[in-house]
């Protein structure tokens, strides 16, 4: 397994060692989840899955997680997320995404929740095997935050709100008891809100979707039919509209996007290592092809880690964040295609793990915005001289 691409502090190094070790346990459960996405029980005892649930929680809610505090603290940074995502995805990205824990919704809570909402959410997530969801994407509008069609209207009598609409491609949507839903209360960017939704609420329904890969993540369709949202469930109600809904969504999407790149890179490195284990002696021409691909993988990986370090330092460069996510997704597809080719005819029927990762990596193109969108951001960055600055 490859070392980190740049110098990091001792806590980040310790996180890397830890995530490498426990991520390797994901491989076999990953195959099980791919066959049966509901077979979640076998993964709940894995050290990495426990870490995914509790390691990302604020300290008071972390319970008796048996890792040094420094590791858990660095895991909550963007760099820590990148390290964890890469190492866990090296084991199995599906297991990582099927894990209980805060998902992206925890980031929204961190960004805009009031103290009562904060405590209520983290107390709930700290309960054993609690999944959460982050519901932004809609069937007709994708993840275009400005065009959300899910509505939040005043309930008759003024007691809270009614949520109506549909979300699609929501990870763990059909197994989570609680999640964050983005919706529209009023026209314009200030009319976007984030609400906490309890899936026991009348009018809520969730159906798993049949996905090609990352099947353990139980990507789902959610429907809201007059779901009652109490006044205390409107996230950040204590803030001005300009400081909550839309801001919460963008804050999280930018911050977590490098993690998607890291997952794609973890799968890529795993596929390349698998090839080297299965075919230690490649022909000169095949070696050149693999090395050519790895040159690009290591360059994209270095960019990814640098972007994460920059985000932690407060430099959120949307063009560079989008670019590395798009590049990592593309190189992951290229890597699995190459590995299947170099393993020879029948590789995808003889190597079940390879056929799985070959399907899994194609999800990264779709997560957190497609390459088309990120290229537009890169173009804007070029114009503003924030991407490839002179």
């Amino acid at each position: 397994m490859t070392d980190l691409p740049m110098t990091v502090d001792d806590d980040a190094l310790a996180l890397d060692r830890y995530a490498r070790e426990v991520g390797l346990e994901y491989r076999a459960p990953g195959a099980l989840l791919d066959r049966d996405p509901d077979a979640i029980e076998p993964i709940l005892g894995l050290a990495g899955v426990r870490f995914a649930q509790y390691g990302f929680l604020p300290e008071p809610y972390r319970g008796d997680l048996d890792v040094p505090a420094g590791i858990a603290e660095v895991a909550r940074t963007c760099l820590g997320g990148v390290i964890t995502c890469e190492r866990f995805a090296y084991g199995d990205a599906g297991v990582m995404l099927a894990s209980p824990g805060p998902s992206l919704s925890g980031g929204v809570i961190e960004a805009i929740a009031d103290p009562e909402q904060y405590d209520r959410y983290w107390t709930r997530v700290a309960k054993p095997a609690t999944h959460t969801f982050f519901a932004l994407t809609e069937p007709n509008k994708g993840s275009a935050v400005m065009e959300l069609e899910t509505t939040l209207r005043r309930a008759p009598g003024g007691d809270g709100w009614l949520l109506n609409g549909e979300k699609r491609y929501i990870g763990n949507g059909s197994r989570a008891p609680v999640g964050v839903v983005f919706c529209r209360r009023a026209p314009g960017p200030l009319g976007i809100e984030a609400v906490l939704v309890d899936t026991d609420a009348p009018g809520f329904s969730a159906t798993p979707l049949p996905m090609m890969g990352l099947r353990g993540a139980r990507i789902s369709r959610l429907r809201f039919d007059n779901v009652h949202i109490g006044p205390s469930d409107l996230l950040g109600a204590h803030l001005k509209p300009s400081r909550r809904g839309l801001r919460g969504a963008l804050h999280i999407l930018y911050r977590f996007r490098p993690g998607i790149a890291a997952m794609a890179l973890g799968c890529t490195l795993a596929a390349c290592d698998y090839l080297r284990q299965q075919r230690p002696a490649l022909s000169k021409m095949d070696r050149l092809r693999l090395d050519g691909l790895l040159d690009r993988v290591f360059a994209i990986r270095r960019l990814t880690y640098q972007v994460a370090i920059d985000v932690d330092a407060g430099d959120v460069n949307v063009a560079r964040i989008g670019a590395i996510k798009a590049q990592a997704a593309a190189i992951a597809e290229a890597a699995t295609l190459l590995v299947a080719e170099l393993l020879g005819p029948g590789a995808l029927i003889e190597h079940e793990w390879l056929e799985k990762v070959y399907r899994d990596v194609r999800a990264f193109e779709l997560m957190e915005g497609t390459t088309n969108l990120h290229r537009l951001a890169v173009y804007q960055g070029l114009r503003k001289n924030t991407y490839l600055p002179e």
Partner: protein
Amino acid sequence: MTSTELIVGYPAALDDLHARVAPGGLVANRGGQVIASLGALPQAAPTHLARWGLAVGTAAGQPERVLDEFGTGLLRLHRRLLHRALRQAMDHLGGRTSGGASLLSRQLLQEQCARIAMRLSEDAAVPEDVLRVDPQARWRLHRRLVRTGRAILRLYGASGYLADGPAADLHLAEVTGQTYLLPGDDDD
């Protein structure tokens, strides 16, 4: 391009190709591996492809002529799937709006659809006479079709990753092509 052309699911279409090229039998690749529908290989041990309706078995090798014909047929089938998927993608995009306008009114997407159609047109112009006699040409074409298929699925956004849409058949075309069309070490 005929968007209404009937293509049953990939496993049935693959069985049909087996039947046309090797009546009464199944075509194996050079390593003796066979991919066909679960119904066509009822005795085969279940594999990870069973969920997609495919089984993997073994059979004796066939004359080169049969492999040449079968490989050419696989590419023809793959191309048909791509034509259909592109048409469906355009229907899908036409039904979605952004900022009050159809997504298909965006130049970026128009350009992508056109580029894909040009690639498909180019690939359809490769003479089957050439494909029948040149395994390397068949593999090269397969790789181009894989790239085109992925470009088409990207047009669908996340729904291009649903297993009950075109992604499943295209995945099976990729797996089957990788098994039958990738030349082995002993091929020129």
